[in-house]
């Protein structure tokens, strides 16, 4: 796990350095300032950008370990502070979307297996799949236009109240729901085909117990693994949603920082999100190991 996180630090540091725009020039450009040679040198010195790259990396890494990602080139405020305050918003959005994904895909997925091929089942699945194929930025606008502006049901934008979180969370979640319906459905059907389910039936075990204890528990490892991936995806996908719904989250901040080429912010952001992903995966593995005792044997490195 630590190896993976270290790898993420490498990527976050050097990937950003690939960007062909000089950060100092970006600094001047974003402030709409004319550039002079001395000014460039001064800023370069101030930000430590004139040192060898490896040295810069070492310095950055050492600070990053202490949760210090340096200062934003743009605002001069500590990146960690900026990111953390915004992360809380994005995490809230992602968490809300996450529960919507689990709840809706869980209900529809299980339903579709238990009451296979029913009319309601088909209809809801078709509907969900259709919405999922829509680009989220587009869907977001259409939802805002229809639900908020035309019907006036939910607040337009912003962040903070539960009503305000409904539309963005739904928009964010919709893309993932069909994937999970499919995952739940496929793996449940696969699980049901397994011989031990037949044996449980042969023992006269109640169908409800079979579904709960055997089938649902059986799909958990696959589900956990996917959910860990999705957590990362939700955080990433939030960027567009946050722009559409005017949510002061980290995704929007990323896009803005990208436009400004604010190195420190980008590096810190990628490091945090990568680390989160690694942690999510580790948690998923841990949960898998709790559910499936066999997984405990397979894990070698931590």
């Amino acid at each position: 796990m630590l190896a993976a996180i270290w790898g993420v630090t490498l990527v976050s540091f050097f990937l950003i350095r690939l960007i062909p725009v000089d950060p100092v020039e970006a600094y001047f450009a974003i402030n709409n300032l004319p550039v002079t040679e001395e000014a460039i040198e001064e800023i370069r010195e101030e930000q430590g950008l004139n040192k060898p790259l490896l040295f810069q990396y070492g310095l950055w890494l050492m600070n990053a370990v202490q949760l210090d990602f340096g200062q934003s080139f743009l605002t001069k405020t500590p990146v960690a502070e900026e990111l953390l305050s915004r992360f809380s918003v994005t995490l809230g959005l992602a968490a809300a979307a996450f529960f919507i994904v689990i709840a809706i895909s869980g209900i529809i997925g299980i339903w579709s297996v238990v009451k296979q091929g029913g009319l309601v089942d088909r209809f809801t699945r078709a509907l969900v799949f259709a919405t999922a194929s829509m680009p989220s930025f587009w869907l977001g606008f259409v939802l805002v236009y229809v639900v908020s502006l035309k019907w006036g049901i939910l607040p337009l934008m912003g962040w903070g109240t539960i009503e305000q979180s409904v539309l963005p969370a739904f928009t964010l979640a919709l893309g993932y729901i069909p994937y999970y319906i499919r995952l739940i459905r496929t793996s449940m059907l696969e699980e049901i085909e397994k011989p031990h389910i037949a044996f449980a039936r042969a023992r006269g075990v109640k169908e409800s117990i079979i579904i709960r204890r055997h089938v649902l528990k059986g799909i958990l490892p696959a589900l956990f693994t996917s959910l860990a991936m999705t957590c990362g995806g939700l955080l990433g996908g939030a960027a567009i949603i946050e722009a559409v719904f005017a949510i002061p989250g980290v995704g929007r901040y990323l896009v803005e920082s990208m436009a400004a080429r604010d190195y420190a912010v980008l590096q810190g952001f990628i490091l945090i999100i990568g680390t989160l992903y690694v942690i999510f995966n580790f948690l998923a593995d841990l949960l898998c190991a709790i559910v499936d005792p066999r997984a405990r044997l397979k894990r070698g490195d931590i």
Partner: protein
Amino acid sequence: MKNWFTLILVLLVGVLAACSNTEKEQGNSNSETTGSDVLTMSWAKDIGSGNPHVYAENEMFAQAMLYDPLVTYGKNGKIEPALATSWETSEDGKTYTFKLRENVLYSDGTTLTAENVKRNFDAVLENSAAHSWLEAVAIIDHVEAVDELTVKVQLKEAYYPFLQELTLIRPLRMLADSAFLEDGTKNGIKAPVGTGPWVLTDYKKDSHAEFSRNENYWGEKPKLKKVIVKVIPDSQARTMALQNGDIDLIFGSGQLAPIEYQTLAQSGQYETKISDPLSTRILAINSTYGATKDKNVRLALQHALDRKTIIEHVLNDLEKEAQSLFAPGYPYSDISLDPYQYDTDKSIELLEKAGWKLEPGNEFRTKNGETLTLVMPYNSNEQVDKAIAEYIQGAWRELGIDVQLIGEEWQLMIARAKKGEFNLIANDTWGVPYDPHMYIRTMAGEQQIGYYAQKGIPTSDQLTDNISKVIRSTNEEERRKLYENILQTIHEEAIFMPISYRTNYLAANKRVQNLSFSMQQYEVPLNTYEVK
């Protein structure tokens, strides 16, 4: 299994609790937005930390609300008193002495003094690298507090636009002593304490900011009690918020797309307003690159530009047609030049003259086997720039000109512009109070769009010489002459294509009254607004 459900339940409750907490917070501020003397407006970005002496993250309009300059910029460039009631300039133009207004109170209750003004100047000078672009800062030698209410500024050299640059929203505005950190202001301030008409009373980054009326304001106090600024980055979202009643006011150039403004205006349900010209929307032509090295080609392009169509259809009549680089009301800009008229026949004639012929069967003109190709980068996030570029591309195709558009992020576009790899690029003049001297000045510095525009013309050396002269000149008559010369050359060499004069515009609820604009583009005159 059971454990799993419990876990989810706990997490769910946690999230709901978190949501409801913030709801309470939000609820308070929401209830106040409905008050009769409270105005809610949108802004595309967060207002920033409110440091008057730095740039970036800080939005100018907010800085202007909180802090005052020594002098302000009036109609037609007239300098008017603000914190300073009067001022004197020495014979050699190197010494400026300001008499401060009496009994000006900061929002923390302290009084404005000469010492305090000096401290502000010193803080700015201490961070001179960041302000190197601004001659008014670079030229200051030292500042003295002569007495309680007299400040003397000593310049290294004479600089005629000094007062003009003092009117800028940043960096030379005054912060209270109590807000300074030990090392000045370059690394932040303790709190935004100014003498301005407004006081920041509530602020949540990237979400909203609340300004309350400064009851101690020295000038005419605002009519509104409170102004709430909501951060809404997307222009369409802003429009919808206005339609929905979430906000009362959208203000500023680019805060509304022209079509959105037009739709709102035509609906008749909103108060809409357009300001006088602020800056000039131009297309700069690179005289050092490709086909546009040729003056005839540049002239042909001038005649090929159909401003009327662009203004009517792309800008939706929000901006006025521009005939010159600076609007006639600008200092030294009211010279008479013969504008280039839209005339495609003349344009074709000029192109033919330059040797670009349209061979039968070809879509584009060629000369010695080369196609007449013009490279035109544009900011891919600027819908208006993009539309203009696409329109020009389509329109000029009929003249046999192949316009190659390169849509890039702003940073990359700037990088390309700095390298001079373009024929045509959208650009703006600096506007009030910078122009004309600031934009002219960029033409002399390397890696600037204006530089590439003039570098290729035969009289380039003379032009840049004139530019450096004009800024140092202390003689009004000489200045006028030099400017006339400069603007004449620019026009004759056809290196800039003015399209329109940028304007500020606003859309507001009918309940908002006394709507107006400031001279400066980034200042919102909220002092005068009222809410019914």
